């Protein structure tokens, strides 16, 4: 039988190690949870934009019924809530410059929101392989100064 009390042997470094690992995991989990909570909290005054993906283009519908295909015009400083869905296969709606990324799934509406902080043109792209012309399923976001 192996003695648990070998001379010069101590268990405490292992317990410290285990404790540090658990503490770090808790920190990582809590921090990620908290940021997700903050980021997903949509402001009440956000304008809803319906985003529909289909092979191989993006359609956007504003609250007033205006539709855009392949391009999206937004105002700087306003909050926008995207309701993302798909007509055919799974796509993924991505505005890389604003870290906006949400899957577009048929029969499901996924929500993501953001508020543009700079004017300019920003690429919109599909981030989920969706068929032959996936590479060219792009659009452009135009952020303009408000009226």
């Amino acid at each position, binding site marked *: *039988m*192996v*003695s648990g009390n*070998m*001379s010069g042997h101590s268990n405490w470094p292992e317990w410290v190690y285990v404790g540090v*690992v*658990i503490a*770090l995991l808790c*920190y*990582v*989990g*809590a*921090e*990620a*949870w*908290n*940021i997700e*909570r*903050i*980021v997903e*909290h*949509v*402001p*009440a005054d956000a304008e809803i934009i319906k985003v529909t993906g289909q092979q191989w283009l993006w359609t956007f519908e504003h609250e007033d019924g205006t539709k855009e295909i392949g391009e999206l015009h937004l105002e700087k*400083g306003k*909050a926008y809530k995207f309701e993302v869905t798909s007509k055919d296969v799974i796509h993924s709606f991505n505005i890389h*410059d*604003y*870290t*906006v990324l949400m899957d577009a799934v048929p029969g499901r509406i996924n929500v993501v929101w*953001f*508020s543009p*902080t700079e004017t300019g043109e920003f690429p919109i792209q599909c981030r989920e392989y969706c068929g032959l012309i996936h590479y060219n399923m792009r659009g452009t976001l135009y952020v303009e100064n408000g009226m």
Partner: protein
Amino acid sequence: MKVIFGLGLVLSLLIILPSVQYVLAAGDEPAEYLDRRIEIWGLFYRLMIVAFTVGTVVSGMIVWLVLRFRESNPKAKPTEYEADGKW
């Protein structure tokens, strides 16, 4: 001791942490306009610091163990089993 520790771990994973998350996500605070780039990339960099710190500590520990407990280390001394055959 180990039972209590394991129980605490299971409880915290199954009950305490989801409860905290539920409470925090209750939405009793007004949502603020925020720059998600700052939040998300900030989170990424903080977690990268954790990841690289862990990597440094673990690899440093392994290097130290290998050097300290090699047979050719002048400080090395045989264990009781190796010296006297005591088990």
